[in-house]
């Protein structure tokens, strides 16, 4: 039953893709339906006319779009149900599909880990399918055919779901690459822009390299076992060295997809250029699927984790978290910023996962379960709020045709609903209490604080440092999203478009983000249900759950023990409401002190203009000074002079360009190396036939000499 739901989810998303293909085939559909009605004339006229009506030229595209997204949404709902089903039942369901190689059919396994990620995919897909129809309306059909968008969206979701279901390396890779390739087409969807093409190429290239690393990782396991089903791979007995090699390969492969520094560069390139609901899926969900892969590979297939791996994850995660948020802060393109912030969040997840590994390897499975829980919960939360923010970015883009936050401002009054939803997203991602981001970060700190149980001095001093880095990350994230929200929604409009902007009209476009925002808040107040779901994942995968996850009842969160730490978000909410209401009521009761609206105080100079407001680069200037080494900063100020002796400044041009260190350090050398190598190798082909004959001759002589 549960498996049927899961299959249903895959098939529905797949069919939604196929349905989208009908976009250009209206006449064929019309013909077909007429043919059909001719065949069965006794069908009632009502439905016939309804269908005929819907096939009219002006209705058809609209209805088809709706239908495609309805299917996609159903797929999401099915995925949620399937995920919940397996998590609640704590089941492991296996199956085989008679596809694939003749002697190895596709193996399917649906367990709690898959179920949990199914849940993530399902929620995100549902929200996106609510949002989608309104959003894609703005695309010009001749420039950006919906058929392509719909098809690959369906395939993309199907691919992600299949990755979660796969139980052999071959099937896994097929699903994995289906996901990559489909999303590649989505990134390249608006391909008339050369930056988009570049981004798409970079994305696909890194996806391919990552996939190759994963294959190699599976290959290492497979060479120690017979066959490449996950069942067989679990049985493989690897020496410590080989296991570490496999781990490093998997880390490279999955890390590339997840966007770990320094292999993150595709992410800020690819996410901004895809349509927003796709960016939401990519950033919110696909990165999680990569995380799933890593967890599946390390905790399930390799099984016997080493603490050194945990340290690697911890260090990489820390670097990614800090690097991600610092880079994010410097961005002016909203979606690019969000993409970098995904790097940060994935970094946090990796950190906590590393902690979990360290505890696991040191024989503290309960603490490992705690770390695991924090990691998965953060993954879940990130899926919610990053999705929300990307959808929000899409709404803003849809209304203002801008993504540059330096050109926005004042939208809180033009788009009140959007601003509210976006604010919730910002608060969640800044891990403020009462929202879900805080809960997972709190759990992460709790995990890190358990370091006292470890014997290893290095770990004991490393982990607190990482925890402090986590604190710094959280604080920087808050600063970053203050910037984002403040510059986009507050102050005065900085551009014409923003002045003209108005609220999103489409209900679905608001409903999708509203669903996510609601969940962000709900799970911020009542994290219990999700945590108990993750607990069953941990129970199945690590063989250990949290000791007393419900010891104090549903109000409380006390992961280790009540004497060590506890958090009761509902009580906090009540307290906040009481404090807020009392002060509000007390201060507002005097009618003499009603608000008076007046001009902004301008220090007596007069004429406050939007240009005088702080811009993005101004806001982040202190950070730029403090962390100067993190970026490659190219800052230039040019002055136009005029007047006598050219002494008066007529205009000042400020130019700021901020680049990632990984480009000149890592990627450009590789690119140049390959081009150079190609040039060298190219020399063998001189164009002269006598030289070619010489090759043949020499080869022959050498071969003969070799064998005799």
């Amino acid at each position: 039953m549960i498996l049927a739901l899961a299959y249903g989810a895959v098939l529905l998303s797949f069919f939604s893709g196929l349905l989208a293909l009908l976009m250009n085939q209206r006449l064929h559909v019309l013909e077909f339906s007429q043919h059909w009605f001719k065949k069965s004339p006794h069908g009632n006229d009502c439905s016939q006319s309804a269908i005929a009506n819907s096939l009219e030229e002006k209705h058809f595209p609209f209805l088809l779009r709706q239908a495609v997204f309805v299917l996609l949404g159903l797929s999401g709902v099915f995925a949620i149900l399937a995920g919940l089903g397996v998590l609640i039942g704590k089941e492991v369901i296996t199956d085989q599909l008679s596809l694939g190689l003749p002697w190895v059919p596709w193996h399917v396994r649906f367990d709690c880990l898959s179920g949990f990620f199914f849940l993530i995919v399902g929620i995100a897909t549902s929200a996106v399918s609510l949002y989608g129809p309104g959003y894609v309306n703005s695309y010009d059909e001749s420039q950006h055919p919906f058929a392509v968008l719909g098809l690959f969206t369906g395939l993309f979701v199907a691919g992600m779901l299949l990755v979660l279901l796969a139980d052999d390396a071959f099937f896994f890779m097929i699903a994995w690459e289906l996901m990559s390739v489909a999303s590649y087409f989505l990134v390249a969807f608006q391909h008339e822009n050369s930056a988009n093409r570049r981004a798409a190429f970079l994305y696909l290239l890194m996806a391919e390299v990552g996939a190759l690393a994963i294959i190699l990782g599976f290959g290492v396991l497979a060479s120690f076992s017979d066959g490449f089903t996950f069942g067989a791979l679990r049985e493989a007995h690897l020496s410590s060295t080989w296991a570490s090699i496999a781990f490093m390969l998997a880390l490279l492969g999955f890390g590339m997809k997840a966007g770990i520094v320094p292999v993150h560069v595709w992410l800020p390139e690819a996410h901004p250029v895809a349509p927003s609901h796709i960016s939401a899926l990519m950033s919110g969900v696909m990165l999680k699927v990569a995380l799933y892969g890593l967890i599946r590979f390390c905790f399930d297939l390799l099984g016997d984790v080493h603490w050194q791996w945990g340290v690697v994850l911890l260090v990489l995660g820390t670097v990614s978290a800090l690097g991600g948020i610092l880079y994010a802060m410097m961005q002016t393109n909203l979606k690019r910023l969000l993409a970098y912030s995904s790097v940060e969040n994935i970094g946090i997840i990796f950190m906590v996962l590393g902690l979990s590994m360290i505890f696991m390897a040191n024989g503290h499975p309960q603490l490992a379960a705690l770390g695991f829980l924090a990691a998965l919960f953060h993954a879940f939360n990130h899926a919610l709020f990053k999705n929300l923010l990307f959808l929000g970015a899409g709404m803003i883009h849809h209304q203002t045709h801008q993504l540059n936050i330096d050109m926005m401002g004042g939208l809180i009054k033009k788009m009140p609903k959007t601003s509210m939803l976006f604010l919730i997203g910002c608060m969640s991602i800044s891990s403020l209490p009462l929202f879900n981001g805080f809960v997972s970060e709190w759990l992460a700190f709790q995990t890190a604080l358990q370091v006292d149980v470890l014997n290893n001095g290095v770990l004991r001093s490393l982990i607190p440092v990482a925890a402090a880095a986590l604190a710094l990350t959280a604080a920087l994230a808050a600063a970053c999203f203050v910037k984002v929200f403040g510059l986009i929604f507050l102050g005065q409009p900085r551009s014409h478009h923003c002045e003209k902007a108005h609220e999103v009209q489409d209900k679905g476009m608001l409903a999708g983000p509203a669903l996510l925002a609601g969940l962000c808040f709900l799970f911020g107040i009542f994290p219990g249900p999700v945590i108990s779901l993750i607990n069953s994942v941990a129970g199945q995968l690590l063989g250990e759950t949290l000791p007393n996850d419900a010891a104090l009842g549903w109000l409380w969160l006390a992961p280790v023990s009540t004497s060590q730490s506890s958090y009761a978000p509902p009580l906090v909410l009540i307290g906040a409401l009481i404090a807020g209401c009392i002060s509000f009521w007390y201060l507002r009761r005097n009618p003499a002190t009603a608000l008076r609206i007046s001009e902004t105080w301008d220090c007596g100079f007069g004429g406050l203009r939007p240009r005088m407001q702080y811009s993005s680069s101004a806001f982040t200037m202190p950070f730029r000074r403090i962390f100067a080494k993190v970026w490659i900063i190219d800052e230039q100020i040019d002055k136009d002079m005029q007047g006598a002796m050219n002494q008066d400044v007529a205009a000042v041009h400020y130019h700021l360009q901020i680049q990632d260190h990984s480009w000149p350090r890592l990627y450009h050398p590789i690119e140049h190396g390959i081009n150079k190598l190609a040039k060298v190798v190219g020399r063998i082909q001189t164009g002269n036939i006598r030289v070619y004959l010489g090759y043949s001759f020499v080869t022959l002589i050498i071969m003969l000499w070799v064998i005799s």
Partner: protein
Amino acid sequence: MNIEQLDFYTQAILSMAALVGLTSFLMLGQGRLLRLIFVFAMQGFLLTLTTALAAYSLNNHHLYISAVLTLVLKVVFIPWMLRREVLRMNMHRDVEALKNNTAVMLGGASLMVFSYYVLHPIVQSSSVVMVNALAVSLSVMLLGMLLMISHRQAIAHVVGFMSIENGLFFAAIVATNGMPMVVELGVAFDVLVAAVLFGIFFLHIRTSIDSLDVDLLNKLHEVDK
């Protein structure tokens, strides 16, 4: 088994082998096209004689057919065609300056030693004396390639190509007394078609680059110029 213990025919065939090898050397050092073609025809003729001798000594009738085919193709048709080309192109007075001719000749000699070295195990394991000539046929083949590598004229390439065929043919005779008839016929057919095609190509190359110097055929390459 020394050569004096062999019967006359075998002695003759081995002598022929030596002569065929010699003709290869002559071609390798030859800068004038007409002479090159003449020596090639000589080689073909020697080959025909060898085939005929082998046919006679082994009493193998289908070798006679091979001999006739060789005579027609490699002594008459191909040299005639090439000669006509040369005359038509007005190249009969050109002398190709061969670079490092001595080195090439020495290289050719060492190729002969190499051929013997390579085929040593085969020759050792055989009871048939004629197999000794296998090394010669291999070296004829290799020399043919060397000829192509060292000469720039397309006609020299064709000669080299055909002399490789000669080497192969010789190998077939001395080692195995000729291949099965159907294969022989097929090979001969291929050679014939190849010869015709070469003729067509000379025409094409000449119209395209106004020369038959293969070094000028260098438009397609992977080098940054």
